[in-house]
């Protein structure tokens, strides 16, 4: 068990999903500080602030289907500002079609996952996130 804590930004309009991810991290014994915003506009506002303060999160979990501005717009925003080079962006969506995958990768997303149906599957996914966190250059231990 490491004592370092990573900051993670979750962009999702479903509070249940955010809660589930938090629990999954807890259960996996991965201490992280989770910030969350519920739509794309908020996400972009927050990201521009933290980018200016040089306080980028260690990872961004991004939903696609959101009110006001969707996940593609957020990705585009991050891509244009080269944030995707500094922060791994993981796209989590209910269903992913081939075109969506291609588009996300083109915009700089690190990986795409369908949202799991059970807490067990989610915990396995969190184990995978551990690798991205260890690779992340920003949002290190606080």
């Amino acid at each position: 068990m490491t004592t370092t804590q990573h900051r993670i930004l979750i962009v999702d309009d479903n509070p249940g999903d955010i809660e589930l991810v938090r629990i999954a991290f807890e259960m996996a014994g991965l201490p992280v500080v989770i910030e969350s915003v519920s739509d794309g506009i908020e996400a972009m506002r927050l990201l521009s602030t933290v980018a200016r303060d040089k306080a980028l999160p260690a990872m961004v979990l991004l939903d696609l289907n959101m009110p006001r501005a969707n996940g593609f717009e957020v990705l585009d925003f991050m891509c244009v500002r080269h944030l995707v080079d500094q922060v791994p962006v993981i796209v989590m969506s209910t269903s992913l079609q081939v075109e969506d995958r291609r588009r996300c990768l083109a915009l700089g997303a690190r990986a795409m996952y369908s949202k799991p149906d059970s807490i067990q599957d989610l915990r396995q996914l969190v184990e995978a996130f551990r690798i991205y966190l260890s690779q992340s250059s920003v949002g290190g231990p606080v």
Partner: protein
Amino acid sequence: MSLRRAVMIAVATASLLIVGLLIHLAKSGSASRALDETSRLSNDVTTAVAELDQLIYELMLQPHPRPVQQWRILSEDLQRLFQRLEEIGGPNHLVERLRSEHLQAHELFETIVTDSTFQTQALAQTNTAVVRLRRSRLTEQLLLVSRSLVNHANAIHRASLREQARIKHRDNAITIAALGATIALLAWLLGYIHQQVLARLEALRRGAERAAHGNLALRIADPREDEIGRLSRTFDHLLSEVHDSRKRLSEETALRASEERQRQLIDALPGLVWAARPDGTIDTSNRSWREQFEVTPDAPGYDWTELIHENDRAAWRSAWSSALANGTGFEIEIRLQRRDGWCWYLTRVAPLANDRGELLRWVCKASDINHHKQLEHHLRNSRNQAELLNQVGLDLVGELDIGCLTQRVTDTARALVEAEFCALFYNTTDATGDDAYQLYAVSGLPKEDFAGFGMPHATDLFRVTFTGEGVVRCDDVRQDPRYGRSAPHFGPPAGHPRVVSYLAVPVRTRNGTIIGGLFCAHSQAAQFTMQHERLVLGIAALAATAFDSARLIDAERRQRRLADQHASELARSNAELEQFAYICSHDLQEPLRMVSSFLSLLDERYRAKLDDRGRDFIRRAIEGSSRMHKLVRDILAFSRVGRGERAEELIPLDEVVDEALANLQTTIDQAGARIERSPLPTVRANRLQCVQLFQNLVGNALKFHGDAAPVVTLGASHDGHRWRLTVSDNGIGIDPAQHQRIFQVFQRLHGRDQYDGTGIGLSLCKKIVLAHGGDIGVDSQVGHGATFWFTLPDPSELEQTPLSGLHVLGTPSPESVSEAGAS
């Protein structure tokens, strides 16, 4: 050298010779005469000396003074003779001798005389003897001298004779030489003349003779530069002139003959023929002119072009003057006023030239083309009518608007029969097809002028047309018994245009219904012929057909519009449905996932705090949500087929099956199944959908197995233009009564406790196959396994005829692929 000079030189030479000879002879004659005189003088001297001797003798005999006297006279004579001899050129030395000897003689004589004279008496008396002796000696001396004189005189005489003979010989020789030379000269001259004159003159004569006999082509061709040479050349020239003129003469004669023949010929020719001199003066016309026209073109003092129709005259004049200017012919159609009236002529004017290209004559020929013109007129009329008919036919075929159509028919009918006005009355129905009413079209009059008269009443005259009894054609309709017998107008209403010629034709459709009538009218009598009637009948038939087709097409259009409307509505509803299914499925997933996730969380965290029943509830809730999840995913996949982007490519089905089997590997292993494969073709299709198709079919085959381990066989065959692919199993089989039902969505044949599934798998397969332009089905009996088959187009044939109607296929998500639908 000219002959003249040659002869002159020759003659001059001969004359010189002869003159020279004569001069010479004259000179030698005078010399001869001198010699003669010398000779004579010398003779005289001899004679005189002899006389002197005589005198001496006399004196001797008788001294007497007379002989002395005489002697002295003679001596003086001698002196003169000597003088003369000297003058005429006698031999000087001899003459000198003569002179000296005479002097001697004279002295001697004087001595003797002195003696004799003074002593004559004494002689006789005294000493006669002595005197005598002395005298004798003197006399003797004297005689000796005298002898010498005679000798010398004779010598002179002989010398002169000799000289004379020599001169004579020389003269003879010279004369002979000169004469010889002259003769030779004359002989040469003769030869020369023969050769240079006579022979050539002979040649000339012979040439002239032959020329006289007609050989005008011969030439003497004497190149010499003398008179005869020139004469010969002049002769040659003359001959060639004669030859040429003879030739010209014969040509002219021939021309005259041919002109005469021509004249006879053109008289014999049909049609009008006339001819003009190169300057355009007409000098010939043939018999037809004289027979058919009041005047002929060659009539003096008359402008024949007055015969040409005034509309054609200017054209003729300009063509004629330009022909005269350019020397080229032309062709023109003109009307000429014959005795029997105007007549069309096709007139050709051609220049006639000789072989040297010189214009000789203008020849004009005019053929009567009245008949042609009439034919042409008829032909043009017929062609115009045919064109009108053709055009109206074409227009009617294309025209669907009834109003335009009827107007067009009416206009054409009027144009064809040249009527003053035409009207077409016809029955029609409104859009609903219920209300029948009558409309009309008018040509030749403004439609408003006609509006006041309304529709034709069912008068006796009109009725026959609308009842279809036949065509009515009247030269004067007012004479028709049906005319003017019906109320209210008893004839045409007031203000109606005058109608005399009348032609009415029913418009009858193919099924025999009279839908209207076509009426043509003219204010003049007898305007409409049988031909017009036939034409209007044709137009009416065309119009009827056009009415029919316009109605048909109108109906068809209405139907097509309806069908199009339905189709677009259907397409919209389909699109909405698909969008709805997609959104539904997608949005249903979210809450469902929440349910299942939190249920699983509940199960994991609080399992220990629940009793068995609580755990069972949770399990059931998880199962339910899981099935719901599958359902939603399958519906999502189902709705995606036929949605999304076109993603077709050439794919080898072997690779597709590899992928499908890999996805099913766990199931295959669990069931202990055997998959028997054979090589599959390459098709043009959406890859993911094909994977799903095989995955679903093989998945089904694995799922519905009986007691035996499942054996799945994949196969392919070609039925001529499509691939037929089969997936066979040895499973439980399907009742043939259910074969249709299993491909319907949400249809299941088994309880969920027997075989799990959503009832979407096969319907998804069907949708995929149909979207690819194929077909799907099953051959099966219960308990004997099942063979699912589907067809896909052969891409090699698709290359040639691309399927435009092919639906664009979406792509399934990996999740939906991973689990095959079941029925």
